[in-house]
């Protein structure tokens, strides 16, 4: 197709106008995006009436009992709206860019709470609204990630260990082998998994070698952990997921590096008909070498319903509501009442999985994942990327 001189000149002028208009437009755009605000230091005033709602909850999928949420709605005569996210990073990004309007951040991880606080995403709590604070486990009253518990209350806590099919593996051998169980599982090739998390699996490889500094940023240590973890690809055809809660009871997985609460979930809701919880087993390292993690709840800064949000947090800190929630999510509430003896006696957890409930000693001496800073995160994320790419 030929172009006439007139057409060429017309199009050149149009392009010139466009570019000319575009430059100032781009200048005006600047560097917008999910920029942080300042840390919020002022909480809401005392004695305010609850808003009319709806209360907007931002949470992982299926991480709160709908019946408990309904009970809250009935008690306060409000509606709720639940928006879900799939990863901690996604949650932070959506709140930072205000892509989501939320009142309650239901599941803040220890890795990101510092950023949520410093970046002005969550606001300080007014504890006059939180009459159930006395129920909280002592370890989480003044946690390392939120001194004085000013911005958060704990939601759930759990440990990381090995879930396995007790009808296929000898429990005593698992106890003796510890983390080596995964490396020795050549008989179960294709039925072994590690957690899909930037840090958990690499930490497991470090703990296996007796290293307990789970927040190291030493490149050599992380490279060695990567090398050890990579062995699992050829040895056992390892998978990377967070599906142990269903794969173990279904039988498609025999050994899983997983969270303790996944075994509770597996036993309470995912076993095939006629199969009892005795087919499941859980191993974890002793106190002092046991990774413990907890999720926390907070009130989003500048939200429309802060009083309702406070009341919701308080509602979930109530022992009865927390117990009802536990029967659905399988993750233990971070409240004093929920000891191993209590949950087993109430038949909330089968006796053979009592060790899925961290003891107070294990909680107090637990190893906790802490923020590493940008450079530290980059090292771990690069190592994890290499592992998932095939080593």
């Amino acid at each position, binding site marked *: 197709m030929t172009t006439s001189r007139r057409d060429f000149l017309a199009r050149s002028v149009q392009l010139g106008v466009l570019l000319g208009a575009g430059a100032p437009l*781009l*200048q005006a*755009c*600047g*560097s*917008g*995006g*999910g*920029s*942080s605000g300042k840390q919020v230091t002022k909480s809401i005033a005392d004695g305010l009436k609850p808003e009319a709602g709806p209360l907007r909850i931002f949470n992982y999928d299926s991480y709160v009992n709908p019946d408990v949420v309904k009970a809250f709605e009935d008690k306060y005569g409000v509606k709720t709206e639940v928006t879900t996210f*799939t*990863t901690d*990073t*996604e949650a*932070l*990004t959506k709140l*930072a*860019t205000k892509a989501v309007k939320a009142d309650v951040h239901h599941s803040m991880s220890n890795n990101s709470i510092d*950023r949520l606080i*410093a*970046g002005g*995403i969550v606001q300080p709590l007014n504890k006059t609204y939180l009459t159930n604070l006395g129920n909280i486990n002592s370890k989480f009253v003044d946690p390392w990630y939120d001194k004085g518990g000013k911005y958060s209350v704990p939601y759930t806590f759990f440990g990381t260990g090995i879930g396995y099919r007790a009808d296929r593996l000898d429990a005593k051998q698992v106890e003796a082998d510890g983390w080596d169980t995964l490396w020795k599982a050549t008989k179960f*090739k*294709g*039925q072994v*998994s590690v957690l*899909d998390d*930037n840090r958990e699996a690499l930490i497991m490889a470090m703990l296996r070698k007796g290293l307990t500094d789970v927040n190291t940023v030493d490149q050599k240590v992380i490279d060695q952990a990567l090398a050890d973890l990579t062995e699992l*690809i050829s040895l056992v*055809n*390892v*998978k*990377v*997921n967070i*599906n142990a809660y269903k*794969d173990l009871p*279904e039988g*498609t997985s025999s050994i899983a590096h997983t969270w303790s609460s996944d075994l509770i979930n597996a036993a309470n809701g995912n076993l095939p008909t006629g199969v009892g919880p005795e087919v499941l087993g859980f191993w974890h390292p002793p106190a002092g070498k046991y990774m413990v993690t907890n999720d926390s709840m907070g009130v989003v800064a500048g939200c429309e319903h802060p009083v309702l949000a406070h009341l919701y947090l308080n509602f979930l800190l109530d022992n009865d509501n927390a117990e009802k929630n536990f029967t659905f999510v399988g993750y233990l509430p971070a409240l004093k009442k929920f000891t191993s003896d209590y949950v087993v006696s109430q038949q909330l957890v089968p006796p053979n999985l009592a060790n899925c409930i961290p003891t107070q000693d294990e909680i107090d001496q637990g190893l906790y994942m802490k923020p590493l800073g*940008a450079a530290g*995160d*980059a090292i771990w*994320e690069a190592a*994890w*990327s*290499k*592992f*998932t*790419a*095939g*080593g």
Partner: protein
Amino acid sequence: MWPVFAVPGVGWLIAFFVVSVYAVMAVAFGSVDPVLRTAVPAWNPAHWDFSAISEVLHRVFGGDLGKVFVRTFWFVAASLAGCIAVGYPVAYYVARKAGRRRGLVLALLVLPFWISYLMRMLAWTNLLQPDGIVNRLLHVLHLQGPPRNWLDGNPQTVIFGLVYGYVPFFILPLYSTLERIDGRLIEAGRDLGASAIQTFLRVTLPLSVPGLMAASVITILPMFGDYYTNTYLTSGSPKTDMVGNQIEHYLLGTTQPQTGASLVLILMAFLFVLMAYYMYTTVRQQRLADR
């Protein structure tokens, strides 16, 4: 007057393609908030920083990400071959031989679209279990001895999943081309002494090349970015990790969104090369046809 009718299409293209690509570039060449570590896009090219994409290019050409790209390429190539092997005979039958059943067969071909892609993959994870119906069927037909674990992270399962998921997209445009082939050309071939196979190879197949190319493009473009087929069918095995999985990892699971966005741009550049070849072939064929 007539160019005005192009405005909605051009507007759509600008809003949902040009702006989206520019947004990805702004993230890839932007920075990260020092506190939140979320993406801070750089909308003004004068502020662009190319260090993230340089790092990713270094990892792709000679680093650990190179094998992910190679693996993805082979998965897509094998899946395309599978789509041709399965889809071409189906499209040919519907276009040339189905007769009165054509409408019914087309409806059946479109039926999988009624169910979400994810649900179909989840259904297959059930069927491919060691005690699933696939193993039982293969055993009954004496095609297999002990049950095989299809979900243990082997590439064949991923390729099968990609073929299954994308073959309907392959069949429909190919059917459209085959259906438009003038039957008299095929008759002429037979009349001039060519056998059925020779007529197919020398008349039908060359005439179906534009449809084959279009169907291939429609199929392989989304395959290159696919990440959920591998995730669902192999439960995240590192042996089957594709570029889409690495993009998902960096965008949703790390504090380095620029790396994820850079991977998107590199993948797009690679796909542009393939698209350029497709466009060149199409234009060349159009010129030959015009003569």
